[in-house]
């Protein structure tokens, strides 16, 4: 119970004794009580620690105001999501542009291969170090899916040359007896090569170009030696180990021709042949004739036809 006398009422309040919050209404002289409380409040100004407390409190309040404002920082905070979005957009655009440019470059590569038509690549096959010396040959292409490969075989074998190709109807291979084996797919070639060289690779420019975008991770750079050429470097990402681990294509933009293709297997492929690398280099001045791609000309009745096409 709070005293009704204002002096005692104030004494009770300021002494620190607990008092009920609804007990103040009973004071007899609110004016005197108010005045005495005001005297109490004014006396606090002379307290020894008041100056420091006041300064500290005001400083804290002003610091809170400063924290409350910070318009520039706030503005930047608001800009951060926009900045992130812009960076993402730039990144996405850059990625799209990069992918897009890469796809355009690959498309140019394939288009150039098709447009350029018939031509011959000199082939050099490198084998594992402890295997037989390198093998040479040629691959004729026409850019339309047809090809003829001629690979010189080591002396002493069943035949001096491996001769196989592809037409619009399928694959063919010149058997040792001079006959032509045909099949709609590559199996007839694979079987013969497996028997002779043990799963040796059958590199094909057309197939490589067709699978480059899907089976390989491709980067392309300008050839430092020849700025008119572009070098495509493909690293295989498919699980098909018969495909070369690495493919490098040097493409002349000025002539739309593939100047060189390099296939590389790691480890070497073929239990007998042990092929480590196949390099096909464009023979600039050699242009095979149409008849070179016709397996019919390789019939036993005309076994010299491919040679005549050279």
């Amino acid at each position: 119970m709070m005293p009704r006398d204002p002096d005692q009422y104030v004494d009770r309040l300021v002494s620190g004794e607990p008092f009920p919050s609804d007990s103040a209404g009973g004071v007899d002289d609110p004016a005197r009580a108010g005045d005495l409380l005001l005297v109490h409040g004014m006396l606090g100004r002379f307290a020894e620690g008041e100056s420091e407390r006041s300064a500290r409190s005001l400083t804290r309040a002003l610091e809170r105001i400063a924290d409350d404002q910070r318009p520039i920082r706030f503005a930047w905070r608001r800009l951060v999501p926009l900045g992130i979005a812009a960076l993402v957009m730039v990144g996405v655009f850059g990625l799209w542009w990069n992918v897009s440019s890469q796809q355009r470059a690959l498309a140019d590569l394939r288009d150039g291969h098709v447009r350029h038509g018939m031509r011959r690549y000199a082939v050099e096959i490198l084998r594992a170090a402890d295997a037989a010396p390198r093998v040479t040959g040629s691959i004729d292409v026409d850019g339309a899916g047809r090809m003829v490969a001629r690979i010189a075989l080591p002396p002493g074998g069943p035949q001096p040359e491996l001769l196989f190709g592809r037409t619009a109807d399928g694959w063919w291979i010149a058997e040792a007896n001079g006959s032509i084996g045909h099949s709609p797919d590559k199996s007839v070639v694979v079987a013969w090569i497996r028997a002779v060289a043990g799963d040796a690779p059958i590199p094909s420019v057309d197939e490589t170009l067709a699978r480059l975008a899907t089976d390989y991770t491709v980067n392309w750079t300008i050839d430092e030696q020849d700025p008119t050429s572009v070098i495509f470097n493909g690293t295989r990402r498919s699980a098909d180990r018969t495909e070369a681990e690495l493919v490098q294509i040097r493409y002349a933009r000025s002539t739309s021709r593939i100047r060189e293709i390099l296939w590389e297997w790691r480890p070497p492929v073929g239990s007998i042949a042990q092929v480590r690398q196949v390099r096909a280099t464009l023979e600039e001045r050699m242009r095979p004739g149409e008849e070179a791609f016709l397996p019919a000309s390789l019939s036993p009745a005309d076994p010299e036809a491919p040679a005549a096409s050279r």
Partner: protein
Amino acid sequence: MANHIPTWEYVKARVLSSGSPLDLRRRSGDAMATAARSVAVRQASAGRVILALGAADGADDASCGVSSRGDDSRQPASTGSRRLETRVDRLHLYEILIRQQSDKLRAFIRSIAFDRDLIEDVFQETVLVAWRQIDTFDRTKPIGPWLRGIARNCLLAQARKRNRAIIDDEAVIGRIDRQMAAGEGAEGDDFGEKSEALRNCMERLGTEQREAIDLCYIREMPATLAADVARITHDAMRKRLQRARADLLDCLRRSNVLESPA
């Protein structure tokens, strides 16, 4: 003593005419001014400008805010020229204004709250809320009642929050507010004069009352400790304090520093 009305317009005019708010700061020359200035300088060095967006931007708390603007009150200066003011300028002005009012504001808070932590927190909260709501202040009127209204609302909110008792007798609080308001808007530093008068009255107290005031108010001893120092009982010390406050009140009334009851 310089005569002035501590309103926003006055302070602004004073700062602009003096070229620096430091002149006003030096007059009070206390640690608080230094602390306040250090914050302002940090603000300025941080390049935080653009006053026009200033205080009202953050006026979202309003748990203990009040508005002094009536229907006929003029709008706060939201003109183009005011928008050219800097935030630093505005904070400087506000610091000066608050510093001028802080002793009086703290005395008001001490008059109706008796917990030291509560007093400090309410003071800080009042300064912060007043800054946020400065655009709602009618600058044609004295700022003291407006600040005390904010402080009172803050006190109520904090007391409820902390379950602390404060005076909620409207008649008592109204009396304190009226006594403080007397002289506001008139000439002179009214609270400084009142404080000076109180100091004079303290010197006229009897020895025992003077000692009680010195121990309990100046040295801030609890009454029990002060009683031990004075080698009297606790109740005797409280009686001396009670007597001293009554004597001081009579002295202030006789000096017309505080209005006597009608």
